């Protein structure tokens, strides 16, 4: 086996045993990237020289602990000191922050080796990574298909063995949905578990940093590093932070698992439903109690999301005005013109559409009918989950209605594309932890199993995911990077 094929845990073993150095690992991973990146197109920025330097310094330090010598990548809206952070937008094409996001700083401090920045839908607005201003990323299982989004670059890189783990973000499913499409693990922590400082905001009340890995245990290790109170983020709260690896137990006996009937209704591919039901049977087999429940407001989550997220985004993206950083249209004669043309040229279509929608939903005369209404429905959605979690430990459902779709297939009608998030968005609305793990294949494409837990109970998710992993081998399947490049 080549070093690049190893998981985070396996790489740690190799390092501890002295079978390879950080430099060996980094070079192997860079070699893999050279080999496949032309097909996958996961990286916006690849810092080979910096990576080799970090690896050599790591080797010079000697004893390996934590993430020492482990390569990783960041979704390109997580700020990294001295490295371009573009948000896959023309607006920030040349933006180099002089600060690290808290998660970036913590991974750095843990000894990880940052290889580069990964593609996404512009400002995380999209579900296919086709909205990147630079290029689309492709699904390693079928290069004619999308990797999902918005963290498509992160998911594809981990699936294609270009990286053992990567960070993404999840506002409406942007970690779980691409993980599902690419057959890897995608973890979205509870809102407030991981700092958002230095993560370029899309929708501040929904955004949360997520983790991609190929094993559940790797995900727990990364969570151990990035989670926990941050004085720079008022919403990253002080709570006893557990050792997330302590939940890695092959034991779901008596775990009460609910599956919401609304997540298995029409519009969900029957193959996906069947695959997920097989997984539920597996849990029953392993001793869990599995029952059907209802989350009656599920169908309102997506419309709620398409008011709340654009509204917040319209304010979050207002700062891109050409004054302090980023793109500026120098032709404009006055400030108002400069703002308007800078933003018209710097942002792509989907971003502009959402800014327009959000501005409209907040504008005078519409606030109550749209934004305020959405906040009220948001409470109803959250209360649905509270009711279920009063009796159950875990909710299990499909992550996405279908497997990955073809590039170009869903460009055009925004609503079709938005439907991809229908099963993931409610989790963000309620601020809960969610996870997608591989649970099977349909016509060669991965299917994801979504696990949803109580707020700040990531442990139960990890435990259930770990148990499933012990009794399946979907996570070990490797994409052959086949399919025609388009």
């Amino acid at each position, binding site marked *: 086996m080549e070093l690049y094929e190893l998981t985070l845990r396996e790489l740690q073993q190799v390092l501890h045993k002295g079978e390879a150095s950080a430099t060996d690992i980094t070079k192997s991973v860079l070699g893999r990237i050279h080999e496949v990146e032309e097909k996958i197109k996961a990286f916006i920025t690849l810092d080979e020289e910096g990576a080799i330097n970090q690896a050599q310094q790591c080797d010079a330090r000697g004893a390996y602990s934590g993430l020492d010598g482990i390569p990783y990548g960041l979704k390109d809206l997580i700020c990294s000191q001295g490295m371009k952070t573009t948000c896959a937008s023309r607006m920030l094409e040349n933006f180099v922050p002089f600060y690290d996001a808290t998660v970036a700083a913590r991974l750095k401090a843990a000894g990880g080796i940052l290889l580069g920045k990964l593609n996404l839908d512009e400002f995380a607005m999209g579900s296919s990574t086709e909205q990147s201003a630079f290029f689309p990323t492709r699904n390693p299982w079928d290069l004619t298909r999308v990797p999902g989004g918005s963290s498509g670059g992160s998911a594809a890189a981990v699936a294609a063995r270009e990286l053992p783990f990567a960070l993404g973000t999840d506002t409406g499913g942007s970690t779980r949905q691409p993980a599902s499409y690419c057959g890897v693990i995608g973890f979205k922590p509870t809102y407030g578990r991981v700092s*958002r400082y230095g993560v370029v905001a899309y929708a501040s009340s929904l955004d949360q940093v997520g983790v991609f890995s190929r094993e559940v245990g790797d995900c727990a290790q990364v969570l151990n590093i990035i989670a926990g109170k941050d004085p720079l983020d008022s919403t990253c709260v002080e709570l006893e932070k557990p050792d997330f690896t302590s939940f890695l137990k092959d034991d779901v006996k008596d775990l009460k698992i609910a599956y919401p009937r609304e997540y298995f209704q029409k519009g969900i591919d029957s193959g996906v439903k069947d695959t997920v039901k097989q997984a539920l049977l597996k849990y029953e087999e392993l001793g869990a109690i599995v029952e059907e429940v209802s989350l009656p407001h599920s169908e309102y989550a997506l419309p709620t999301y398409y008011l709340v997220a654009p509204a917040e985004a319209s304010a979050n993206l207002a700062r891109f005005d050409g004054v302090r950083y980023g793109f500026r249209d120098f032709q404009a004669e006055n400030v108002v013109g400069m703002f308007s043309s800078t933003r018209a040229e710097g942002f792509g279509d989907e971003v502009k559409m959402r800014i327009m929608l959000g501005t409209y939903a907040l504008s005078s005369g519409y606030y109550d009918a749209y934004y305020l209404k959405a906040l009220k429905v948001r409470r109803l959605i959250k209360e649905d989950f509270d009711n279920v979690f009063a009796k159950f430990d875990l909710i299990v459902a499909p992550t996405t209605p279908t497997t990955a779709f073809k590039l170009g297939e869903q460009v055009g009608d925004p609503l079709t594309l938005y439907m991809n998030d229908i099963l993931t968005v409610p989790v963000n609305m309620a601020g809960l932890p969610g996870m997608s793990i591989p649970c099977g294949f349909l016509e060669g494409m991965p299917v994801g199993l979504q696990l949803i837990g109580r707020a700040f109970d990531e442990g139960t998710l990890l435990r259930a995911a770990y148990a499933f992993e012990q009794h399946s081998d979907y996570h070990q399947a490797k994409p052959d990077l086949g399919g025609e490049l388009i």
Partner: protein
Amino acid sequence: MNFETVIGLEIHVELKTRSKIFCSCSNEFGAEPNTNVCPICSGFPGMLPVLNQQVVEYAIKAGLALNCEIADYCKFDRKNYFYPDLPKAYQISQFDLPICKKGYLDIEVDGVKKRIGITRAHLEEDAGKLVHQGTISSTPFSLVDLNRSGVPLLEIVSEPDLRSSKEARAYMEKLRSLLLFAGVSDCKMEEGSLRCDANVSVRPYGQKTLGTRTEIKNLNSFRAVEKAIDFEVQRHIEAIEDGEELIQETRTWEEDQQITRSMRSKEEAHDYRYFPDPDLPPLRISREWVNDLRLSMPEMPEQARERIMDQFGLSAYDAGLLTLSPDLLAFFDECTHYYHDGKIIANWMMGEMSKLLNQKNLDIGQCRIRPAHMAEMLNLIDQGRISGKMAKEVFQVMFDTGSSPEAIIKERGMEQISDEATLEKIILEVIANNPGAVEDYRNGKKKATGFLVGQVMQATRGQANPALVNQILARKLNS
């Protein structure tokens, strides 16, 4: 037609914290452009606000000083608008749930007392500063300095209870003194730490509905507030009398021309699209917290006024003046530690000292005279070592140099001559040299005494103790 003026004031006060409201940059005034900034107050991508606790405590104290209800629960909202000095293109402010509301303060104008309602006081962050070459309409480009961006502000909105520019000024002065006493702001209008926008309208007496209102911005002195309101009221009345239509608009005060001018050529619709800021958890303000802050409040001007009237028998007017600022009151209080008669202290402070300060355009904080020195001088007068007239000269030197009056009179040989033997000698000389006046005196012309005393004072270059001179002179003339 007779018109009634209706005025409401919106006052922005900078809270005197060490650091800004949502980041750790210094809140000091006057630094080089863009040197008190960080990615947070410059609105960089990914940056988040974290609230300064001291800001909240100052806001609560201000609310208590203004007799406000302090909210149990409040939150922050985003106020969205684009401007080059507003880095995030939204201002973090408070919309529907301000930290303080329903307060009041009392003013007195021409002996008439009046209570002015305070609608609300809310927290917000300041924007940066735009520097133009020339005026805003003629400048080819502008420069943005973000030092002020993120400075904590309390915006205090009055009810439209004010009826004249004088009342508006009295309201501002009172508000300023309350905030100074509460210790929450420097209230320096010249540095912009107290800024006023005035909403002005007029209506015929008896009319219930308000007339068309204009908002005057950029009022940075008490005088400007008065002048701008007077100008605007006159403009409104003339427009109504000429049958012209007034438009609701924002106007700016042009200090050099002493006029108000419309700020926008075409009226732009404002739609701030307020919504709760998801980055900032709401505040729950416990009654214990409010009480603790209430107990930590220093003596407020009203209490101080009562106290000094009581203790020193001052008039309400004098006591009112002395309690305009905590610095004035502290000066007075310290003087009273060394000198018994508060009335005399007050007279000197309001008279001589105030005159000298005004001449130099200084405030009491910049005055070089120490309270102990002032008291020492008053004691010297009582002891007859200097005359009242000499005291004024000494006081001027104290003001210029900060020296003690003892030192001054020693150094300059200004001590009053109260030695009887010395005075007697001089008086006998004067009597000998002015037989005519002595004759007049003995013929019953008592006025002649004045002339003789004047001669003695002249001979002593004013240093003779006048009371003693009178005594000895009378004795000698009658003997």
